[in-house]
């Protein structure tokens, strides 16, 4: 039981990660898939930041009177990850918009069906 408390952060992270993964796999709508992907990324941020925390510590800004600081290294890595994540989200959304204009839909099943139709139409000259 002590295991559950000391590793609670990891359990939460894994749950959120699996929820994001489920949304990406199981839902067909492109925009929802992208949101699921961003949920996945957010869970990874928690995975990185949680081990850096020290009980009784404070934010890693050096000030008088504080001796214990939480580890600043994961913060740096996650800062980069957040900005890169939103950049890829924007690119994914731009692709979704273009797909919408080309196919008329952003549901995965319908896009695949349209593609198959185009392929069979091209196969018969």
């Amino acid at each position, binding site marked *: 039981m002590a295991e559950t408390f000391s590793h609670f952060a990891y359990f939460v992270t894994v749950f959120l990660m699996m929820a994001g993964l489920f949304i990406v796999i199981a839902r067909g*709508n492109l925009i929802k898939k992208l949101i699921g992907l961003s949920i996945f990324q957010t869970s990874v941020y928690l995975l990185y930041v949680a081990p850096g925390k020290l009980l009784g510590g404070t934010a890693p800004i050096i000030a008088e009177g504080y001796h214990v600081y939480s580890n*600043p290294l994961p913060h740096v890595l996650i800062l980069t990850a957040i900005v890169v994540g939103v950049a890829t989200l924007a690119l994914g959304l731009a692709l979704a918009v273009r797909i919408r204009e080309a196919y008329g839909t952003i549901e995965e099943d319908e896009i695949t069906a349209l593609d198959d139709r185009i392929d069979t139409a091209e196969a018969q000259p």
Partner: protein
Amino acid sequence: MALTVLVLARLRNLFSVIVLAGIYSFLTATVLVALDAVDVAMTEAAVGAGVSTVLLLGALYLCRSEEARPVHRPWLPLAISASTGALLIHGALGLPDFADPQAPIHQHVAPRYLQNEVDIPNVVTAVLASFRGYDTLGETTVVFTAGAGIIALLRRRRGKDGDDAK
């Protein structure tokens, strides 16, 4: 946060899904403050709940759809997610305890960063800009490339109105 995500997975109205995603980002920012990551929380709140929501709403306006009713029962994805989750939890049990001062993460480089060689109180900024300046250069280039990619994707060609890029 878990509740937000579960409801998000079930909802079909995309506007509510986007609003829930914004709520989820704010909750993440709060949790990050509780974990003493103030810089990260500020960035997550600004980027995840601010810019990200605006972009999603813009894309939703252009795509104007609601999610279709799922045709197949999601048993296989549920099984995959559950088994992957079980594997990950089994692996995570070997990770250090929460807030363990003896964890390897605190041993090697972090004490040196915290010794404040460059005389800047915000250690995260010092590490980001000085100790790990190369990574930040790479990241700025990635952001720039994403911007250039979006320009390339969404650019409108000059020409007649019907002559749009397909």
